[in-house]
């Protein structure tokens, strides 16, 4: 059948959501459907938040099925609309009153928030079925919009290429260097880790300069490398050679890094407020879960550095946990109704 995948995008930004959309389209095509991706720019600031939502309402989408993904792409109108929700506009929901939100307690913010909740609920209720990327996203939808949904897990990018390897002398993470990913927290943790353990922090973002300054001030330049964006080949080898992966975003929706680490047979060190990551990382079984402090993260890195057998056992268990992930069942569910 002809399927249009709908996604919103902030121009010049590329991360997990964009990879997710691309891979979904590829999986649909591989399953014999004719799939295409339609993306519309969006702006996250409060004043322009609903502009893109309105634009989606006006789009003529000629297809047998429409799969909407992130806010506000699910405002698209189609008689056969299925939503696979990556996330809503979190600054108006669970991130309100944090540094990542421009929704305050003023009258305008509260009314904008009320209206957004009303619109979101209406647009999502139009869908024949609502899936989410994780239990966490489903629980937010239940909590804020009173809607039931079904988590639908899918394999991360490079799933077929990631492989096990030696448990070397470093931990790694590949993520956008943005506030919600907390790269500074990861780098700071190395202050509490003994040499020769190293950290590789791949990725780029707005915190690039701040991260480099931190490494200088903490005299960690020789122990934390920041190669920027790395190629797929390099990323696969980066995971393969680490003794653990450290990943501590705030309330992550899903978190490809976790699944990629597991696929490479590596345990993941994370924090108790990392959201969807905790659906996979079981403390002491597939990784370590700590407080969100540099000291606690550093201690966890140190403990696995000193006990590679434990890291190997956790890594093996982690690899088993993701062994059954595949796109086939995901596609079947999405096109079923």
């Amino acid at each position: 059948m002809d399927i249009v995948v709908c996604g919103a995008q902030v121009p010049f930004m590329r991360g997990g959501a964009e990879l997710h959309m691309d891979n979904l389209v590829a999986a649909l095509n591989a399953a014999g459907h004719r799939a295409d991706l339609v993306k519309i720019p969006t702006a996250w600031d409060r004043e322009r938040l609903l502009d893109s939502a309105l634009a989606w309402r006006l789009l003529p989408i000629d297809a047998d099925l429409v799969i909407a993904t992130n806010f506000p792409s699910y405002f698209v109108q189609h008689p056969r609309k299925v939503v696979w929700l990556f996330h809503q506009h979190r600054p108006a929901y669970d991130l309100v009153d944090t540094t990542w939100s421009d929704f305050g307690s003023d009258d305008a913010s509260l009314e904008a928030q009320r209206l957004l909740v009303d619109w979101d609920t209406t647009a999502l209720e139009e869908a024949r079925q609502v899936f989410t990327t994780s239990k966490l996203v489903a629980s937010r939808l239940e909590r804020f919009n009173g809607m039931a949904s079904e988590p639908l897990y899918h394999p991360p990018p490079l799933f077929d290429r990631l492989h096990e390897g030696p448990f070397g002398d470093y931990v790694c993470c590949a993520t956008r260097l943005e506030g919600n990913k907390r790269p500074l927290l990861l780098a700071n943790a190395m202050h509490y880790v003994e040499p020769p353990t190293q950290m590789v922090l791949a990725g780029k973002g707005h915190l690039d300069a701040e991260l480099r300054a931190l490494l200088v001030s903490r005299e960690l330049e020789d122990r934390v490398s920041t190669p920027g964006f790395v190629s797929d080949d390099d990323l696969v080898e980066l995971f393969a050679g680490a003794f653990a992966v450290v990943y501590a975003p705030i309330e992550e929706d899903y978190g490809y890094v976790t699944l990629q680490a597991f696929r490479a047979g590596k345990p993941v060190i994370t924090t108790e407020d990392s959201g969807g990551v905790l659906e996979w990382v079981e403390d002491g079984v597939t990784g370590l879960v700590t407080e969100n402090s540099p000291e606690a993260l550093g201690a966890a890195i140190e403990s696995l550095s000193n006990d590679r057998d434990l890291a190997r056992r956790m890594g093996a268990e982690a690899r088993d946990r993701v062994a059954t992930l595949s796109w086939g069942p995901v596609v079947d569910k999405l096109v079923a109704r």
Partner: protein
Amino acid sequence: MKAAPIHVPAIEIIADGRIPDSLARLLRVCAKWCHVRAGDPRLAVPDAKVAVARSRTQVKRVLENSDVPCAIWVVGEEFTVEEVEREFSLPVLARVLMFESGAQTQIVGHRALGVSPNARFLGDHACVPPFIRARWRLRLGLDENFTVRVGVPDALKPAEGGFSASLAVAAAAVVSGEWLPVALMLGTPVVTDKASVDALGIPAEGVCVVSDQASTDEALNALIESPERVAALSRAASRFAREHLDLGYAARNLMHRLGLARPGLHVRPWHETQLANVLDAMNTPLTAPIRQRALELSSLPLGSY
């Protein structure tokens, strides 16, 4: 160039005798969006008619003489659209039969519309979800568990605006009587008595029902302690009120069925203003089809603003 005037649809009333109160109230709300007038052969043909019929014979007469979409308000007799079609061997020209259906406002047959005698215009009230209520309470410096009692014997009697604003931010409320539809529409988690529930035909999932004062306080406290229950009640209540107790919803529903629905005739929601600004900036005439089309395509379903 002067733009052509916008056509405002006209509804003609056909009634031998008194117009039932419920219909009169419904038509007063329809008048927000269209001309509602008595039948007069000197005037232009209306866009639709609303007729009152007190017998099957009158229903038949209206059907035989209706040359425009017609709604028939049936008084006294209960029958379905299918029965009318069968009995008179006529294709039913009426788009809708309306029944004043007591506490129950279920749709009777695919072309019938029930209008609760308890319905009133609630379009000024929008649902405030529980977590935004909590933020409002914080902003206003109210207690986290701020509750309201409205319509109960020991209730305070602030001005109407005070009631409405209080209900909009309350964590939960004990409400009965005339304020119950407002509280439900606002999405206030409500504790009430069985008589009120029966009078409005509220489903069990929409309110928390109690029998006496002691159980009222107990239920109120238990409700506040359960965020999940609060959220479920809030949404179910608001949905029920919007679809069954709001004359604005019923009027728009009626106009839609008569082919008179026209986005933008109500108080403009935000997106319509945005769209209008964009279209005006492009020098788009008021009568241009794209203006109508843009409004139609961008409208969210009834009650979503």
